[in-house]
């Protein structure tokens, strides 16, 4: 199944894809329904606004504190994990991360690697790298399994197959799962997935997982899930590889409950998930199960660029709950695939430029009405709207004095736009020029073009008034 490459689409075609998505009634219905469901479920978990604000303050504080001490905490985490028997690897970019994992898998002559849900593994395009190495990388989260079966990528970070209807999944299973009869009962479809994947858990040599929180004081990796596939991947195969971004570390175990409580409530409106899996090391000599060998891959991939700027550092506070996308009017209308990046929605718009460079992603921060909903629901209070504005600015201009340029700094600069703004500035600072323009624009108003690009797609054309306001006021006196 993994021989079929997953489609990856660069963010540069965002506008075309967004237009196509907006015209797709089916897709819009799927997303609107699912997002309304998640919005209501979340709201029901936070009946007391004052209590929510105090929880957000604590969570924000924990994340800011952890980031302020990030280098020390990463070293402490590494030291603890190594003492617990875990091998720790560091990767500066996606290629390095993939090479490390392919290398481990090859050393164990791996044919099959089962994967628990990990957005970082999507971010580094691990499945491609494994396919190139001739190793099957099988997604085992039901939603991820469904999208992989159809050769797609997740459209939501928490609910990967949210864009698909039950009927589409029923047809997909009947077509692609060997021996599966057609059924559109959700219970039976899940039963089919369960049976297929249990076989795979038994035979896989390597299991891969993400990490939700990494605790430095004890060297503990925490995984949040409902299905149990994460536990399977981290327990049954002989080798467990965890992959995570460097920002996921917290100092103490006691920092976890406030973040965990907000994560599940913000994400799916659950007070807690079925499983919270805390892993601190491989199987001990007297234990009868668990992986004999354990690895953690710490991935930078642009995170240090966000870290290097005090404002943009707050991007790394994210605990990946997805509430910002659930509440985003743009995401709800265009869905996750239109963005063309691993992380869609508002969080994707502010994190992707660091991972992929502004040249490929400068259009993403413009996919927002700046309504502010994302910032309002963010459990760790990332000022997403401010960061969107900041990234728009970075895409249009040279780096601020004293700041290192971002990758792709100024990628959206346009000579025409610069010339228009210079002209505008000149006119508005010279009264004579301003009056001359006003006189000309009103006298020659008949010459305004009837088609005015994007403006006239759904609006009547703009036309100057018959007389300038100055002239009208002068007439009244």
């Amino acid at each position, binding site marked *: 199944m993994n021989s079929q490459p997953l489609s990856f689409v660069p963010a540069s075609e965002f506008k075309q894809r967004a237009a196509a998505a907006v015209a797709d009634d089916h897709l819009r219905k799927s997303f609107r329904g699912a997002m309304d469901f998640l919005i209501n479920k979340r709201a029901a978990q936070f009946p007391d606004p004052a209590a929510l604000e105090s929880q957000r303050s604590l969570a924000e504080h*924990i994340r800011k504190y952890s980031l302020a001490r990030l280098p020390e905490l990463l070293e402490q985490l590494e030291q603890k994990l190594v003492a617990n028997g875990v091998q720790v690897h560091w990767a500066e970019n996606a290629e390095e991360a993939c090479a490390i994992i392919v290398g481990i898998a090859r050393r164990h002559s791996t044919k099959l690697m089962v994967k628990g849900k990990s957005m970082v593994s999507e971010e580094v395009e691990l499945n491609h790298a494994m396919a190139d190495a001739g190793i099957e990388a099988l997604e085992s989260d*039901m939603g991820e399994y469904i999208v992989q079966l159809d050769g797609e990528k997740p459209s939501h970070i928490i609910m990967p197959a949210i864009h698909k209807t039950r009927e589409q999944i029923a047809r997909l299973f009947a077509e692609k799962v060997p021996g599966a009869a057609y059924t559109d009962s959700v219970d039976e479809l899940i039963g089919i997935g369960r049976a297929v994947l249990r076989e795979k858990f038994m035979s896989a040599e390597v299991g891969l997982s993400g990490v939700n929180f990494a605790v430095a004081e004890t060297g503990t990796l925490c995984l949040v899930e409902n299905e149990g596939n994460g536990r399977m991947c981290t327990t049954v195969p002989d080798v467990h590889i965890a992959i995570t971004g460097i920002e996921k570390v917290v100092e103490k175990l006691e920092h976890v409950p406030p973040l965990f409580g907000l994560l599940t409530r913000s994400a799916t409106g659950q007070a807690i998930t079925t499983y919270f899996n805390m892993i601190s090391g491989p199987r001990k000599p007297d*234990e009868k199960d668990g992986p004999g060998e354990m690895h953690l891959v710490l991935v930078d991939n642009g995170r240090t660029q966000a870290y290097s700027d005090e404002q943009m550092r707050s991007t790394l506070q994210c605990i990946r709950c997805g509430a910002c996308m659930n509440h985003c009017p743009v995401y709800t209308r265009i869905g996750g695939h239109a963005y063309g990046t691993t992380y869609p929605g508002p969080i994707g718009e502010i994190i992707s430029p660091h991972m992929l460079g502004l040249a490929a992603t400068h259009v993403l921060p413009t996919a927002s009405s700046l309504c502010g909903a994302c910032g309002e629901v963010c459990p760790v209070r990332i000022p997403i709207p401010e960061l969107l504005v900041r990234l728009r600015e970075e895409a249009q201009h040279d780096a601020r004095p004293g700041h290192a340029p971002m990758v792709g700094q100024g990628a959206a600069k346009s000579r025409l736009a610069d010339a228009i703004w210079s002209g505008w500035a000149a006119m508005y600072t010279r009264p004579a020029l301003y009056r001359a323009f006003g006189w000309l624009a009103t006298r020659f108003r008949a010459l305004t073009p009837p088609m005015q690009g994007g403006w006239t797609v759904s609006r009547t054309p703009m036309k100057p008034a018959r007389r300038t306001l100055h002239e009208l006021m002068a007439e009244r006196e």
Partner: protein
Amino acid sequence: MSARDRILQRLRAAPQGKAPLAPDVPAFYDALGAAAPAGTRASRIALFCEKMAFWHGEVVRVTRDKWPQKLHELCLAKGVRSLLYGPQSEHAAALVAAGIDGLKPYDRPVGEWKKALFEDTDAGLTATRGGIAETGTLIVWPDASEPRLMSLVPPIHFALLDADQLHDTLFDAMRVQRWSDGMPTNALLVSGPSKTADIQVTLAYGAHGPKELVVLLLVNEEEMQ
């Protein structure tokens, strides 16, 4: 220079404003606790049962001396033909004495009997280290005598929970049980049977793990209701 050193160097080179003070998490929970009526044993039991039922977990109240007999009845009622248990666990002797058919000890490394574990085991029984009332959660602490997969692979998970070990919140459990002094290789919070809503946000139970979770809540005679 290694990738590790370059990453750490970039992080250390970043400007740092005033360092935030360490967050006082205990003070946060203490303030919450002070604002609400203090949790009693009875309120914790009631809340745990309510929340666990919400997660589709079944709670059976039973006294300390009667749980093996109750488990026997449950196994018969559910048609359990094989029940996995830890032969070195504290409760093994009582369990064996109950005369349950098809008792299956987890007595060798999983690699030697993976297929039988996955395909031929109806249920597993584990102890728990306690429970959390606020969320209806079990604290499962696998070890050499009760390995990790016992609570994951069999379709039914029976869990023994002592009502004395119920805590109000996850934070309380962590603090009272002093988790930060040393974590086991694997520790788990379990709230109900395995589930998914990945197909059109429709909830389905028994995704990859147990389809049923049955909690044998050990209570005093007067708490039996």
